[in-house]
């Protein structure tokens, strides 16, 4: 350990970038997934189509996906955000749709019969009931993206991947170790944090 103690601000900056990149991707992917999920939940054919598209994106290796976007978006944050958000989309879309479809028929019938409008029903009944699944989707998406985001260093998007990449280039194991461990630490941290949040938010399910 000789490099790390002297470069703490640099490491922290990279970690910060990494976080921003990951959180922003999940946020963007999440918003699109919820919107798309609401539209797809009661339209099986549209849903099948959306799954095919997002599925194709998902199987493209992340490095290839980033590279594919360079001609359109250049280097840096932008292509990385688009790529990472797309990964989130598939994970989250499934959970949003499964969650919405899992709302029991009798509950929807009661809501309709009591005079909830379609929008009120969605916001006050369906989404809250789908929330446990949406939240666990967000957790999985975030953990996945924190890992994948290291690859974004190849297209100059910054983050902890930059440190790992430097380590590889310079054959400097400490940098690889610091970058890798920090990434793992951040991922674990959010995994635990979001698990707790899930439990706190869906109190109605268990105690």
């Amino acid at each position: 350990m000789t490099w790390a103690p002297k470069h703490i601000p640099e490491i922290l900056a990279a970690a910060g970038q990494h976080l921003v990149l990951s959180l922003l991707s999940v946020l963007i992917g999440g918003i699109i997934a919820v919107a798309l999920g609401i539209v797809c939940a009661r339209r099986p054919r549209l849903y099948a189509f959306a799954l095919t598209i997002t599925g194709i994106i998902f199987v493209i290796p992340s490095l290839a996906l980033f590279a594919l976007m360079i001609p359109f978006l250049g280097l840096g944050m932008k292509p990385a955000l688009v790529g990472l958000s797309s990964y989130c989309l598939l994970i989250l879309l499934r959970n949003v749709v499964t969650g919405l479809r899992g709302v029991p028929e009798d509950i929807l019938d009661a809501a309709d019969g009591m005079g909830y409008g379609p929008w009120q029903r969605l916001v006050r009944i369906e989404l809250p009931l789908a929330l446990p699944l949406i939240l666990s989707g967000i957790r999985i998406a975030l953990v996945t993206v924190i890992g994948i985001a290291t690859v974004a260093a190849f297209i100059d998007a910054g983050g902890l991947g930059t440190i790992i990449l430097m380590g590889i280039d310079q054959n400097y194991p400490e940098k690889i170790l610091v970058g890798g461990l920090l990434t793992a630490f951040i991922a674990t941290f959010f995994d635990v944090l979001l698990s707790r949040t899930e439990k706190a938010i869906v109190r109605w399910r268990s105690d």
Partner: protein
Amino acid sequence: MITMEHVTKRYGEGAAASVDDLSIEVPEGVTVALVGPSGCGKTTTMRMINRLIDPTEGRIVVNGADVRSVDPVIFRRHIGYVIQQVGLFPHMTIAQNVGAVPKLLGWSADRIAKRNDELMQLVGLDPEMLRRYPRQLSGGQRQRVGVARALAADPPVLLMDEPFGAIDPIARARLQEEFRQILRRVRKTVVLVTHDLDEAIRLGDRLAIMRDGKIVQYDTPDAILSHPADEFVENFVGLDRALKRLSLFTVETAMTKGAPNGKAGKVAAGTNLRDALALMAADNSEVLAVTDASGAVLGQLKRDAIFAV
């Protein structure tokens, strides 16, 4: 209060009519039980009243307004709705469940809280339960909450689809009796769907016996049990229809003055005649002494008088 005129419902083009040219009028404050075998169209009929289903043909008028001319969402807030599975919202507390329609109607939090307490009292639940989630209640308690939720905004009309179907027979009988008491206090026009004739007799001021999407007889339980309109109704009400009919009356109906000569069994005032007859059958007697709560003899009940009802 509720009028259905020549209402027909087909699910899909060219499908058989699930409800077939049905007409019925439910006066204000009356409880009508729609009874009939499975698939005869009871639920469909009921759901057309609050426009959860739109009729293929015909006209439905509720409270003077053609239901086609109103905004269904707003309209439903003024009609209580109870279903067999209760359909409580699991992510909301009992307080939030019961206060759901008042909230949709824009009531203040204070007013909702006050009303919630009243309602818990009305359906016989401890107000402490308002803080619980539906999962933490028994099936019977949930059913009560379902009734409370339907009554929350004091709607003039109540629609109920097998509201006591999912609980055991003993709890069901108690809940039915309590519900009868509740209805006596809060005058409502009620359409109750059930396939259980006993429930219909217990709760309905009138019965509408349905078959294949049509109403075959619409009358008081007494009239239907004493004069079934046709063979179908006769079979549907069963061989014991005379006994079922007796359960509609209390011993006071057939009680005469004086006390029985010699030793006689006792029957409490308020008991129904069917049970009184069962008592007579049990000790092979022809007369019973009718007593009040303190045991004092009010009069006598003769077997012949029961048969004459």
